[in-house]
């Protein structure tokens, strides 16, 4: 009995180095839990601060009126810029994802994926400089320039997100449509994309949420506005929220700071709602694919 590594008849208490291994494992578990709590905590503190300081600025007038009482024109302008950016980025992003999952193979796909990840990591001020040099220098600032900058930021998010949901479409669907003598593009249009709609919408909404708050490129390409009234011409400067927040925060007057928090609260609410909506859509589409 005593020759083995342990006595099988002994009570089931830790033996050997199990005591030490248990301590290490406990420490690791607490560390991981603490990190997770920290992430939630940071978000909670940010939301609380913005709410506490910005709620006072929110009123109907604040949402609809122009300078100096409200941010109405900026809201409309941001919506316009982001909408144009989405119109540019979403179709291209979805096509890139289709290339990656349906047509491309091997090395070139890997290269495209790497490129997308690199674009995703580009500092937005660099994208702003690039668009400034491309569309603004010698011309003038415009909503289109801003939309192009945002589209570059959105593109990898849409493409990578869509690629991930397209990869979830079972391979047997592609085999089924291949075996029926239908070309891959028709299958993509009528079988693969429809079953991935939820995921594609999710990726797009996430990209919109990210783009809506981008400030650095807008300061370069779409910032010289007075914000007194709504302006919609995409070839002119269009007022927008991020630049407005940036400007308000630079003023010495405490009322402006409150307005900055208020505008921040509006932007944050929009992004949170969009993000949660995206999650709900993704969950629904995954459940549908699994069923």
């Amino acid at each position, binding site marked *: 009995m005593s020759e083995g590594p342990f006595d099988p008849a002994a009570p089931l208490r830790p033996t050997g180095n199990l005591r030490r291994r248990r301590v290490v494992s406990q420490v690791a578990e607490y560390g991981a839990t603490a990190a997770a709590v920290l992430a939630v905590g940071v978000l909670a503190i940010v939301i609380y601060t913005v709410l506490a300081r910005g709620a006072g600025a929110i009123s109907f007038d604040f949402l609809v009126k122009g300078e100096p009482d409200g941010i109405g024109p900026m809201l409309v302008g941001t919506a316009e810029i982001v909408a144009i950016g989405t119109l540019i980025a979403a179709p291209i992003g979805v096509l890139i994802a289709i290339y990656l999952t349906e047509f491309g*193979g*091997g090395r070139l796909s890997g290269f495209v994926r790497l490129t997308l990840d690199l674009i995703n990591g580009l500092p937005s001020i660099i994208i702003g400089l690039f668009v400034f040099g491309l569309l603004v220098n010698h011309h003038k600032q415009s909503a289109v320039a801003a939309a192009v900058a945002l589209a570059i930021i959105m593109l990898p998010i849409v493409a990578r997100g869509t690629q991930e949901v397209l990869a979830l479409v*079972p391979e*047997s*669907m592609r*085999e*089924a*449509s*291949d*075996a*029926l*003598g*239908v*070309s891959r593009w*028709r299958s993509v249009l*009528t*079988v693969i994309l429809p*079953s991935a709609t939820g995921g594609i919408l999710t990726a797009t909404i996430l990209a919109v949420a990210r783009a809506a708050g981008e400030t650095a490129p807008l300061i370069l390409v779409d910032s010289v506005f007075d914000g007194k009234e709504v302006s919609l011409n995409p070839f002119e400067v269009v007022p927008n929220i991020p630049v407005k927040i940036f400007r308000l925060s630079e003023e010495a007057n405490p009322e402006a700071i409150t307005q900055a928090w208020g505008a921040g609260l509006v932007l944050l609410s929009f992004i949170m709602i969009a993000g949660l909506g995206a999650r709900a859509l993704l969950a629904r589409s995954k459940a*549908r*694919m699994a*069923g």
Partner: protein
Amino acid sequence: MTEMSEIAPPSWPTRPPSATPPPVPTRVRIQGDTAADALAAGRRPSLPVESVFEVGDVSVFYGAKRALAGVSLRIPRSRITALIGPSGCGKSTFIRSLNRMNDSVPGFRLEGSVLYHGHDIYASKVDRVEVRRRIGMVFQKPNPFPKSIYDNVAWAPRNLGLRQGLDERVEQALRGAALWDEVKDRLKSSALGLSGGQQQRLCIARAIAIEPDVLLLDEPASALDPIATASIEELMHSLKGRFTIVIVTHNMQQAARVADGTAFFGLEAVDGEPTGTLIEYADTETIFGAPADPRTRDYVTGRFG
């Protein structure tokens, strides 16, 4: 390597496939000439009219690995040909090579020739989408689209431009797959709500809706219970005569029940590696009654391994 001469095509009985032949629907004309067209045009067809496939010394490689070596056989028209044999001996690889479904497998390479009505389906100008349009396939696991029953069957005809008389076409296909009576009242409901056996018959209906020339069935009943299996077998009998059917099956009773000809695949050492190959090919009674090769006899009598 197996020589063509060693495996003669089985001699087919001359009796009609069934006592009451099923009504033949009007066939959609498919582009390209058949052996009969070639005869009419005064050209000598390279195949006897009754062969659909003539496979000559086919080897298949996945990368450096040889999965199938030296397979030669003829598959006759309007008959059921079964491919049997143990797992991993290349039956699925072989049947998927008949309509180029393996093309998407990385590293796939095929040597030898696969002639379909005399045309090499691996020739450089051949469009594999067209190959599959004529040679349909049903897979082991039912894979209906997440669409309605009607849309599953109507999907391929719509995409191939066969929009005229779509309702009748769908009904014909579902009747052909012996599914019509079970689903005629719920054509608009999701295909994913059907049972496994119904889903598989739906997949067969989907395949025959575009009236292919050949139907390849890769273990169509292996994921089904015995009752659903019986209905699939019954279905195959009724489809015989309208389509040339090639079926891979692990179930030897199934092969004995449905097939006119049976090909037994097994493993043989090629360059020191066990490789799938065709051991024996004859009409079904011979394979199950008096096989020439002792390996076939051991397998069909359950003494394999």
